[in-house]
């Protein structure tokens, strides 16, 4: 008579234990890369689970790709730009954007059409017409003006450049501004400044927030009360007038690097409070957990208890909130520089570029000066989507 395999002693027991419940109920089941290896969810470390959940959100993944592309441009601005961003040319004011064309009579050749300038006798303004007869040929990885990669290696190779480096023609993908400076190159260099200010300010405020929030949550008592009052005070200040006042307080004869540094500090000083509150509330609840008490009783020093046991629970949350805070800082810097209080020329950031487009006359004459605003929107949008995806993936309560 046949006996079921579990009771038949001659049938070896199955090598893999069946999962305790139907695998279809587990929310991460569809994420496992290799369907046969169902065991992997049980041994996967937390970051792998988060990564699988993150991959599920196609929009977040796409946004991350875009953010990485923007970051690449920010790290190698010299390579992507076509002209020295500070070089002004009085003969080339307010040239409209010149479109890049790819096919010349069937073969793959890059070119832009030249523009001829005609001075309008009534307004004395230069008006530019595209000359469809004359083509300026470009090539990839061309030689152009010298620059330094990451400040170390000097080179002359740019992504786009003239096919004939000796000629003195110029081309402007995004046009020029009122001083004849190439807007494409300025946008690229501005990317580097705006992104790095956002990153540095967020790092500073994150460190401040973790330290003060951690101290507040871990020790409690009077220290907690003092820090809490301080946080409340800072949070009830209206941000914009305070920013204006602080940035107006910067002496106008400071160098570009000094103002850069000062802006970073100012932005960070107002931004740390939210993270501090979250860290504090987490720590307050974690303090009483069994494993923390056990660690303390085993003789672990306080630093070890905090960093080895309590902090890891916050890592994913911190990463998500850092990613969401960077766009806020980018917008803040942009608007401060736009008002003339943040970075000032000759520094180049998106805000400084947008300052050229501050009034109706500029926009009416040269609407392409608004393109840095598009850069801001795209960057902020993609970083927000990426941050939302990270936050949803790392939040254990949303599944």
């Amino acid at each position: 008579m046949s006996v079921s395999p579990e009771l038949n002693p001659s049938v070896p027991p199955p090598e893999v234990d069946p999962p305790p419940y139907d695998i279809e109920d587990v929310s991460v089941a569809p994420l496992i890369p290799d369907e046969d290896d169902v065991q992997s969810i049980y041994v996967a470390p937390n970051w792998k689970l988060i990564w699988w959940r993150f991959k599920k959100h196609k929009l977040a993944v796409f946004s991350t790709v875009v953010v990485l592309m923007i970051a690449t441009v920010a790290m190698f601005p010299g390579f992507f730009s076509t002209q020295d961003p500070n070089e002004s040319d009085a003969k080339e004011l307010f040239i409209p954007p010149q479109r890049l064309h790819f096919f010349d009579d069937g073969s793959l050749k890059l070119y832009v059409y030249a523009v001829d300038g005609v001075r309008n006798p009534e307004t004395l303004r230069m008006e530019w017409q595209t000359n469809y007869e004359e083509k300026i040929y470009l090539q990839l990885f061309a030689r152009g003006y010298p620059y330094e990669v990451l400040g170390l290696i000097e080179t002359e190779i740019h992504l786009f450049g003239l096919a004939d480096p000796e000629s003195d023609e110029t081309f402007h993908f995004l046009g020029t501004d009122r001083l004849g400076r190439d807007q494409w190159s300025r946008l690229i260099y501005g990317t580097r400044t705006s992104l790095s200010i956002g990153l540095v300010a967020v790092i500073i405020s994150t460190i401040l927030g973790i330290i003060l929030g951690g101290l507040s949550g871990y020790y409690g008592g009077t220290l907690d009360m003092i820090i809490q009052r301080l946080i409340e005070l800072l949070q009830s200040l209206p941000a914009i007038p305070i920013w204006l006042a602080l940035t107006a307080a910067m002496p106008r004869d400071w160098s570009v690097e000094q103002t850069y540094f000062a802006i970073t500090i100012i932005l960070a000083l107002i931004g740390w409070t939210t993270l501090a509150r979250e860290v504090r509330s987490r720590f307050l609840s974690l303090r009483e957990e069994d494993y923390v008490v056990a660690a303390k009783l085993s003789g672990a020093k306080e630093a070890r208890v905090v960093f080895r046991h309590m902090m890891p629970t916050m890592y994913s949350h911190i990463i998500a909130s850092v990613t969401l805070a960077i766009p806020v800082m980018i917008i803040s810097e942009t608007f401060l520089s736009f008002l003339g209080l943040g970075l000032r020329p000759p520094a180049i950031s998106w805000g400084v570029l947008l300052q050229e487009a501050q009034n109706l006359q500029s926009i009416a004459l040269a609407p392409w000066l608004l393109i840095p605003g598009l850069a801001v929107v795209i960057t902020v949008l993609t970083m927000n989507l990426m941050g939302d995806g990270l936050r949803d993936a790392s939040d254990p309560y949303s599944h």
Partner: protein
Amino acid sequence: MSQYIIKRLLLLPLLLVIFSIFAFVIIQAPPGDFVTTYIADLAASGSSIDQAQIDALRDRYGLDQPMYVQYYKWMSRIVTGDLGFSLDWQKPIKELIGERIMLTIMLGLFTFAFTWALAVPIGIISAVKQYSFLDYSFTVFNYFGVATPTFMTALILMWIAFSKFGVSVTGLFSPEYIDAPWSIERVQDLLRHMWLPMVILGLDGTARLARIMRANLLDELNKPYVEMARAKGMSEWRLVLKYPVRLAINPLVSTIGWYLPLIFSGSVIVATVLNLPTIGPMLLRSLISQDMFLAGSIVMIYLFLAVIGTLISDILLAWLDPRIRMD
């Protein structure tokens, strides 16, 4: 409940004093003072001023005294209602900001009404018709709204209005009404110009508010009492509006208090771009020229509004949600 309110009201003056010190220190922080800026301006325009006059100016405005003495004098004047004298405009500050404050508040209130009138229906429709085309388009609009800085919206709308409609939308009044006394025509002119700043300022808040409204309403719509009402035969829209919406709106109402300072500070950028005669651009200019009485007064007003706003917000929250009171 009343104990909570009394506690907060008592803290109010203390908070204002701390903030005023903060504001004063920040205003004073740039090296030099109004006189140095004045001298620089004179030098730039070609005239000059001799040392005796400089000393006389300093003495007249009390600029050479230690900071705490200046602060004390300034505070004691504010408390009696005298906001001081603007060095830059050479006019009493009360006169300068009087009309501007009124315009700022009007703009703020209009924006507030616009934001709510738009956001609540959008939120309701998004929730009731979840995942429909309407919902997705609102979501996209919301994401873009949050990503675009306010001044970008201002610049873009200004450009569109100018290039497509040939309308120059700067300022709050047409040229003939700028300094005119108040009349019906002036009010009408004001309303005609008010719509663009109102839309710009409102769009940002609308996006956020609609999102929250949608999330809240979605939570409510899944509750059993909604199914019960449907089973009993209530028409869909009537039942949605009568019960879940009222519950979903509660948390939003408590955020009203935050709106006041937000709208006033947010309008600084838009006002600068559109050249509106509100408080924002005046603050900017006074900060740059170090007209410390004017700047200090305006910052004080902002801080005051912020504190009042927070207070209203907290009181509303405590009133609506009993859990908060058990602090």
